[in-house]
């Protein structure tokens, strides 16, 4: 595929996200017609007489809109972080869960629920614990002897295991009537009950985190050919790696803290994009941003509309993601 066609592909992807958002506005238990939607939106800027119910307007602004935006935001975050981790660690199997981001967030959330904190504090605790876990992984990984990449992966596995043990222990001592179900539900990953505050919080952090990654994406490319070669080409490997990891981690923690554990997005979406636009971060990173948003938005639409009872999105991403990944590594032709 030529560069020009890759550029066109990415523009198409961005239009798919826009179309996806518009379609999602109409999906849900409260029906809103296109005309009503137009009216609700225009009424923000112009004075028109409502021909819709105030309940519709309320649902649109406080439930549906935040829900749609958070699906896009979390999708972008997980997919972009996965794409960056794969490059920085020179490892196709790298994903946000990889460094303990998710299990750290889970532990923080479980602790907060056990302590009876409110929903906002649960988010904050998940965020803080997620960052702390990755920080710990990074410190341990840097102290390992020999190959630092492998050291970091192993440190991630170990610290994740510790965090998961902590979460399991909290589940054991939690009150079985209300705390335990809440923890379990949080860990499954869900976008239910997203508030406008969640959107602003995670959205702001993700914008701050993704800009440096977009700037550094050329250098992350060079990291994938190996530390020594990248270094002799003139890349300050330690610095590029550090900034990339900080940003990817910030973005992951912001997503996980509002959504719970949503697996597979960070692994599958970047690989899907690799098949389409190739491995050059120039195209791969923007493609991952758009496809991450599109993928999670679509899965969330299924999660909240397919059955009478909402299915936690984490279950769906696994059901869709795992078989799709198997397809990618077998039928997809290229080696991963």
């Amino acid at each position, binding site marked *: 595929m030529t560069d020009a066609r890759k550029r066109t592909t990415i523009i198409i992807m961005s239009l798919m996200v826009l179309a996806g958002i518009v379609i999602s506005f109409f999906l849900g238990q409260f029906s809103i017609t296109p005309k009503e939607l137009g009216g609700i939106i225009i009424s923000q800027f112009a004075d028109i007489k409502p021909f819709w119910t105030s309940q519709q307007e309320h649902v649109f602004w406080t439930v549906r809109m935040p829900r749609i935006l958070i699906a896009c935001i979390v999708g972008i975050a997980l997919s972009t972080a996965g794409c960056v981790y794969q490059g920085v660690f020179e490892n196709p199997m790298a994903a946000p869960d990889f460094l303990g981001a998710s299990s750290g967030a889970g532990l923080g959330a479980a602790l907060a629920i056990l302590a009876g904190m409110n929903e906002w504090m649960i988010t904050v605790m998940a965020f803080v614990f997620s960052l702390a876990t990755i920080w710990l992984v990074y410190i341990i990984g840097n102290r390992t002897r020999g190959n630092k990449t492998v050291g970091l992966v192993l440190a991630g596995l170990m610290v994740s295991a510790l965090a998961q043990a902590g979460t399991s222990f909290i589940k054991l001592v939690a009150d079985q009537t209300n705390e335990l179900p809440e923890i379990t539900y949080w860990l499954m990953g869900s976008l239910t009950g997203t508030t406008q505050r969640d959107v602003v919080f995670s959205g702001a952090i993700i914008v701050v985190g993704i800009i440096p990654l977009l700037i550094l994406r050329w250098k992350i490319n060079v990291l994938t*050919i190996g530390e020594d070669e990248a270094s002799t080409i003139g890349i300050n490997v330690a610095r590029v790696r550090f900034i990339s990891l900080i940003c990817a981690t910030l973005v992951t923690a912001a997503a996980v803290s509002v959504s719970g554990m949503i697996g597979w997005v960070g692994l599958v979406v970047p690989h899907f994009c690799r098949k389409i636009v190739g491995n050059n971060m120039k195209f791969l990173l923007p493609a991952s941003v758009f496809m991450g948003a599109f993928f999670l938005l679509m899965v969330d639409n299924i999660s909240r509309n397919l059955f009478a009872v909402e299915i936690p999105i984490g279950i769906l991403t696994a059901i869709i993601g795992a078989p799709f990944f198997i397809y990618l590594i077998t039928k997809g032709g290229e080696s991963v």
Partner: protein
Amino acid sequence: MISVSDLRYAYGTHEVLKGISFDARPGELLCILGHNGAGKSTLFKCMLGLLRGYSGSITVDGIDFSRLKPKEKALYVAYIPQASKPTFAYNVMDMVIMGTMSVAGGISGPGEKEKRLALDALSKMGIMHLKDRDYTKISGGEQQMVLIARALAQGAKILIMDEPTSSLDYGNQMRVQKQLRKLVSEGYTIIQSTHNPEQTYVFADRILCIRDGIIYRQGKPQDVMDEKLIKDMYGIDVEMVESADKRVRFFELKEYEDNEENKE
């Protein structure tokens, strides 16, 4: 010109380089010979700035190399590995343009100038036709050419190569070495390690023999190389045979049967 003077390096208490000194001038192809573990790779890593904590000095055009930042070093010295195995497949143009990354970058990435540098490098190596091919799917010889093109795009005049042809078939070895001679004639300095003493006759201006961390001998291959040197360096008995044009010589292992006969 790159000058190495009294270079010493130790991994812990194990001293690998024990005082290495030499120069390499523009328009010179220097071959470094040495048995496995002699210290060739360590020497290269020091020269590329990948290992710190050595004693002695490495200067490039009189500038202390250890004081330069990675992106400044990249403008003087380029590294061409034996084979690059990128985790993910890139096309050839992407690989070559990576060489310009120390100067390019920012939000917009490599621009027209960098693209031209990469295209110039590809055409200089005569591999323009590979531009859009997948790097992981071209032959070993072609990959080596791409890595050399990447070093040229980087803009450095000193090229350090780690056994550039050891994994190539005979034809590709010759093609790569011919390209290197062409670069040398344009004023590049090439320092390469090799395990093939015979080849140095054809291509090297000077050889540097490292044994146990010191320079055992250096000079023109025609002056330095003899049966004793091979015996001392590699521990094998050889016989040296000169070809008719007195330029190329070959070494033959003394046959096993000879030794058997001698015993009788």
